[in-house]
């Protein structure tokens, strides 16, 4: 079996006294597209944020390309700020609220990481950014500011910003939840298109149909644990756990 590009081992996470992740194990190989589904409060977004070290975690390990992130050694010594910044760049994250930088043009939003983190010369960064903006269908919006773009366009720029950094794993956190219904598909189509590149993706989503179509595997989370995991056909057509069956019944699919 190939080495996993992302490996999550026995992940525990607490907010104050409430344990939101109670030992999660998950591993992705290069090119895997895995969707996490589950009701709100099940810990799926928290799991994603741990992988990008936007949340600390209290037990367990996360390895990206065999490198332990955030902490090191059995003592779980926290890594230095600059180390963490470098490790964060190994994953790309797209947020529910887009979080584009409002004072920068679409192009500059994409080039910021390329010039400041990857230290690429401006011309090269611009070329990469233009390539990705074209890929998400926004070449003609490169000089627009986020305030001049629709929600769907903003989210597509945010996707370009993340993938332009050439991360080992792309993380999508409910990226269509803040969009008007008619804008959801343009974003989902962009993601679907990116899966053709063999990009490794971990998605948290409420779009069941989309999860069914794009995923190699689907993970159902419930109360901080992975309750069921498998190919989408199995999970959606013949759920084993009672909770998943109930969850699927209550969500539109």
């Amino acid at each position, binding site marked *: 079996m190939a080495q996993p590009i992302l490996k999550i081992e026995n992940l525990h996470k607490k907010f104050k006294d409430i344990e939101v992740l109670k030992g999660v194990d998950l591993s992705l190989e290069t090119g895997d597209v895995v969707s996490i589904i589950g009701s709100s409060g099940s810990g799926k977004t928290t799991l994603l944020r741990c992988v*990008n*070290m*936007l949340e600390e975690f209290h037990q367990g390990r996360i390895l990206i390309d065999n490198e332990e992130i955030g902490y090191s050694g059995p003592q779980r010594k926290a890594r230095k*700020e*600059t180390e963490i*910044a*470098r490790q*964060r*760049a190994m*994953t*790309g*994250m797209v*947020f529910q*609220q887009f*979080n*584009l*930088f*409002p*004072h920068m043009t679409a192009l500059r939003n994409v080039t*910021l*990481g390329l010039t*400041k*983190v990857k230290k690429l010369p401006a011309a090269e960064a611009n070329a990469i950014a233009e390539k990705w903006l074209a890929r998400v269908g926004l070449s003609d919006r490169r000089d*627009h*500011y986020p*305030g*001049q773009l629709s929600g769907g366009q903003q989210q597509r720029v*945010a996707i370009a*910003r*993340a993938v332009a*950094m050439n991360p080992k794993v792309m993380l999508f956190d409910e990226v269509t939840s803040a969009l008007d219904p008619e804008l959801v598909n343009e974003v989902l189509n962009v993601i679907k298109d990116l899966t053709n590149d063999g990009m490794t993706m971990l998605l948290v989503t409420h779009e069941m149909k989309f999860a069914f179509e794009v995923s190699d595997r689907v993970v159902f989370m419930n109360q901080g644990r992975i309750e069921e995991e498998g190919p989408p056909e199995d999970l959606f057509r013949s759920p084993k756990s009672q909770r998943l069956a109930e969850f699927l019944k209550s969500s539109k699919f």
Partner: protein
Amino acid sequence: MFEQGDFPYELWVSRWAILQGLGTTVLVSALAIVLGTILGTFVGLVLVYGRWVSRFLVRIYVDFVRGTPVFVLVLASFYLLSQIGIQLTAFQAGLLALVIFCSTHVGENLRGALLSLPRGQTEAAKAIGLTFPQIFAYVLAPQALRQALPAWVNTATEMVKASTLLSVIGVLELLLVTKQIISRNFMSLEFYFLAGLIYFLIDYAIERAGKAVERRVALPS
């Protein structure tokens, strides 16, 4: 009309004194704004990012200064400091009081602007691998400064008005000069009105300049 006792005549006679007073007012206000902004930037940064000890100390400084009338600050910096052996000229003492006053306003204002930025901005910047100094320089500061600009312009106009308080410790700024002229010719109505008009024009100019800058840096939407 152009004889002693007429306003145009008296104005002509005192023109140099008025210009000098105006010069002092502009100089002390400008210095107070510049130095107060520099100090206030540190105050704001400590209030947001400082460790708790430094944050606590700066918080006391800010609350204490903001809870004290500027007038008292001016008097204290002139009379109290000399008591403990620090001899400042009236100009220096007055400037010090204004700088301290200005720094607390700028600091609070910057703190508010930084804290008002959505958390997602920092998170998105972290996610592409920027370090904290980079996040601050490229993502947070440009947005916070835009937010803080209107209040900063307001503080600048306040400083010009507060500079009048320096007249009580003998700084020959516009108001004290005006008083001296009036004590010579007793034309209090005319010359106080003139002083008021000049203060208004200075602050109006600051206000207009601020608006122009705001328009320039406004984000298109």
